[in-house]
């Protein structure tokens, strides 16, 4: 009897010593299309497309030739608009996009009209997007598209710039051009009270700070804070059109989706970012 009691207690103590807790977690971007079309992805990728022509590249605009053409994949030719020496530019000039790689891996076609006025030390550029269109790089079904239309103003003083959207800037997404043609039209907003600010005093650390919003009226608003600043290194990685550091803090406000936050972190590998911990490669 006592032996049985002892054995039972020993077994009990043995079981107790076996107790433990473990677990694991993971996030993955195994469905990049789901990320690209979710509110956070839309807020990030449309921003990268709309700000593709960086303000620091506009300073030579007074010498822009007519019909600057950006061909092929994303390259410094898009971000760095180099005027042809001795060619007086008309005002406005036209930036033509011909199959330029978009942030979501599609191709950008269309044009931006670029006009400017100078007042004292400040030159204010107005970029008007003339239905700049993003379509899949190769034929897919359904043939989705993004269309950007609207204007943003860039006031350049020395090596700094302030970027705002003076009127409603629209980014329309059409997942299927075939009827029922259920497109969604997002509003891209950079307010004058909290604009984007650009500084390229140090060309190895061109920085972009500030806030912007992407809103799908009646559905959601995503407010994005660039902090720490997005940084481009135009000297060591001149061929990289994407930030090599910086964070977007996204804040979702939605009656239907609820409220949520997430972060997009840009890594030192060109075009690589993580969104909620999952990796997404821009331009792919």
């Amino acid at each position, binding site marked *: 009897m006592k032996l049985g009691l002892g054995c039972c207690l020993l077994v009990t103590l043995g079981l107790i010593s076996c107790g433990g807790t473990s677990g694991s977690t993971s996030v993955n971007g195994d469905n990049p299309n789901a990320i690209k079309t979710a509110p956070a992805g839309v807020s990030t990728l449309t921003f990268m497309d709309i700000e593709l022509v960086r303000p620091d590249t506009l300073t030579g605009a007074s010498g822009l030739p007519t019909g600057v053409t950006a061909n092929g994949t994303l390259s410094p030719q898009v971000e760095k608009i180099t005027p042809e020496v001795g060619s007086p530019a008309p005002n406005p000039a036209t930036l033509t996009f011909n199959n330029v790689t978009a942030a979501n891996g599609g191709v950008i076609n269309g044009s931006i009209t670029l006009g400017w006025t100078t007042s004292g030390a400040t030159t204010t550029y107005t970029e008007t997007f003339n239905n700049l269109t993003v379509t899949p790089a190769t034929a897919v079904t359904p043939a989705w598209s993004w269309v950007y239309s609207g204007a943003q103003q860039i006031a350049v003083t020395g090596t700094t710039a302030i970027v705002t959207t003076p009127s409603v800037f629209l980014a329309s997404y059409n997942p299927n051009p075939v009827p029922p043609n259920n497109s969604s039209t997002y509003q891209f907003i950079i307010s004058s009270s909290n604009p984007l600010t650009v500084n390229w005093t140090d060309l190895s650390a061109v920085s972009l700070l500030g806030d912007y919003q992407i809103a799908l009226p009646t559905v959601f608003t995503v407010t994005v804070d660039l902090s720490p600043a997005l940084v481009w290194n135009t000297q060591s990685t001149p061929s990289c059109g994407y930030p090599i550091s910086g964070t977007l803090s996204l804040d979702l406000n939605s009656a239907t989706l609820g409220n949520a936050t997430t972060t997009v972190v840009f890594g030192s590998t060109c075009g690589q970012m993580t969104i*909620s*911990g*999952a990796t997404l490669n821009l331009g792919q």
Partner: protein
Amino acid sequence: MRFPLACLILVTALPAFAQGTQSHWYLDVHRFTPSLTGYFNGTSNGEPMDVDLQGDLNLQKSSTKIGFGAAYEGTRFGLEISRDEQDYAGMARIHRNITINGQQFNANAVVTSSFKATNNNLNWTIRALKWSQFWIGLDLGARATQVQLDASAVEPFTGVNATADYKTTMPIPQIGPAVGFTGLNGRVVGRASYHVLEYKGCTYGHTGIDLRVFPISWLGVMAFYDNEHFRVPQGSVNSNLDALLDRNGMGFGVVARF
């Protein structure tokens, strides 16, 4: 400390004076499908937890594996081992942010989850007082419950697929009174027990009722009721975790006696 020890020694010695009856071995297969409720809130293993198994994940009974048990019921003591396993599954659009093992799932995500509970039981019953058809005793044993919670969801805000799993083993001593009876010339055998444990603010209660009917002397059917309540308040054994697990249900099976 001395009083419970004295009681234990007394109860252990009492079977020496108990009346003896015939001993039996029992082998059974059974199916047990209890309901499940509970939550985890706080920090476990250094990772945040905040999830309600029903309110958030809507876990429902999914499948039950056949459990088995073996028991020796002697004149002075009984010894049982048993094992059963249940699976629960859930799919729900969550209405608040939840966290499983540090992985947060934001509100409105459609979370697919599963919960697996495996129970291994060992119980030694000291039949302290025994009459011809009735006995009163004390259960001494242990129950190791292993639970595994898995969840995955595509975040509606980010489109990112997030997964998390949480696995814990809870070995719980089973100590408490037990009673049993035999009737109709051994054609009906029943027992009931209540195991209770309180430790550093944690409370555990386990009620079991088991009834076996033998139309044939060596083969019978069994039905049992099992209720288990496990509460770990914040600041008890785990200073940062508040947890509750409740399981409640009926089981049925076939039992052989020899």
